[in-house]
């Protein structure tokens, strides 16, 4: 009996967390003005919200075929959505002429130099 209640509360808390992260993703996509910020906001819903939803449904379903399908679903979406986000960001990087107004763009060589410097200093 108590196990049932624990399971119920876990599922409820996880689903509420998922809804919260989806809400923050939607709000961020509509409120932010710049593409990179929007990508970041949408990424939270795509990864954290999806993971919370799948975990909650998996706990509710218990060990069964549904659990395996949910694991595969999470794997698939965690493979695809960060990659598509990466390509959206890359398209913005290559096509937006006013990119430097919004963020600091480092050429690739400088970036590596800086990192090497950091490792040297550390």
């Amino acid at each position: 009996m108590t196990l049932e209640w624990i399971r119920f509360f876990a599922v409820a808390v996880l689903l509420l967390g998922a809804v919260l992260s989806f809400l923050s993703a939607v709000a961020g996509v509509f409120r932010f003005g710049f593409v990179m910020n929007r990508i970041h906001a949408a990424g939270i819903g795509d990864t954290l919200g999806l993971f919370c939803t799948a975990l909650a449904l998996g706990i509710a379903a218990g060990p069964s075929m549904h659990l395996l399908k949910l694991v595969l679903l999470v794997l698939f979406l965690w493979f695809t959505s960060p990659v598509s986000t990466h390509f959206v960001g890359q398209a913005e990087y290559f096509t937006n002429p006013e990119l430097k107004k919004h963020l600091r763009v480092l050429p690739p060589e400088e970036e590596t130099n800086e990192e090497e410097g950091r490792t040297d200093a550390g």
Partner: protein
Amino acid sequence: MKAKETFLKWLDGDFDLLAHVADTDEHPDPGRAELKREKRHINRRIDSSKAEHRVERAEEKGFYALYTLVAVVSCVFLIGILLFTISSLPRYGVENPETTEVVRRYVENGLEETGAVNIVAGMILDYRAFDTLGESHVLFTALICVTILLRIDNKNMQSRYEDYFKIRMERYHELTGESIAKIVGMVLIPSIFLYGIYVLLNGQNGPGGGFSGGTVMGAGLIIFAATYGFDCVDRVFTAKRLNLLTFCALGFYSFAKGYVFFMGQNGYENHIPKGTPGAILSGGLILPLDIAVGLVVACTMFGFYSLFRRGSIGGGWKSDREL
């Protein structure tokens, strides 16, 4: 003989059949390129405020008013015809022999007559296989039409070098240098193909079948071409093989179904084993026909993408080394 040469020139796009007609009507002596440009930029010319075009602009405004009027009238006419047709249909949900007899026959006798657990597959590939045959041929015809419109072959290439630069630009836009895309594609493309084949082979037992599995496999081919580049796809999937595959699939479908129709019409047994319902090898001809339809759909989808991207399906234009 001259007419044939003119027609061939027109096919190649070197000659405009309506050019001299337009000459005599409106413009006394315009260049042909200018005429084409004017045709394409009618909208922009409405906005331009040149005095010499004022009369023509008035004509174009009249043309657009007429265009809108004809569009609205034809839409209203079409809507009226459709509503009239709907009003003569039998009422939805009411028991009458026109709507329920066929459905009852399918639901009650479908399993033993077709051998397929999935009644939808039994319907579209057994009871109404002729319909599906037409659909597959429609896809093939669409591929042929897109080929006619968008193909760039060696003859066109030599005459128009800008096409070559366009193709080079297409290659520049490919994601072949992206290691992220390649690694994710390495994981995703086989699983997409596996899922497509699963859907394709399970058409008679569960949801799926030729069209669904074929589109999933076509999408997998498109992702393959987008991530690994067309050079990689061309090694396995040339235009010749695509044509051969499509031809074999459609020919097999036509012959198999023609055999069944002929035997059934003349009252013979057709000797095709139905198998046990629920197994993969069941449903008589449904599984092979599903595979044929799926191959046609996958080839068509990839052919569309390839023709839209670079103007050929594969091996149609010269590679970098030859040029």
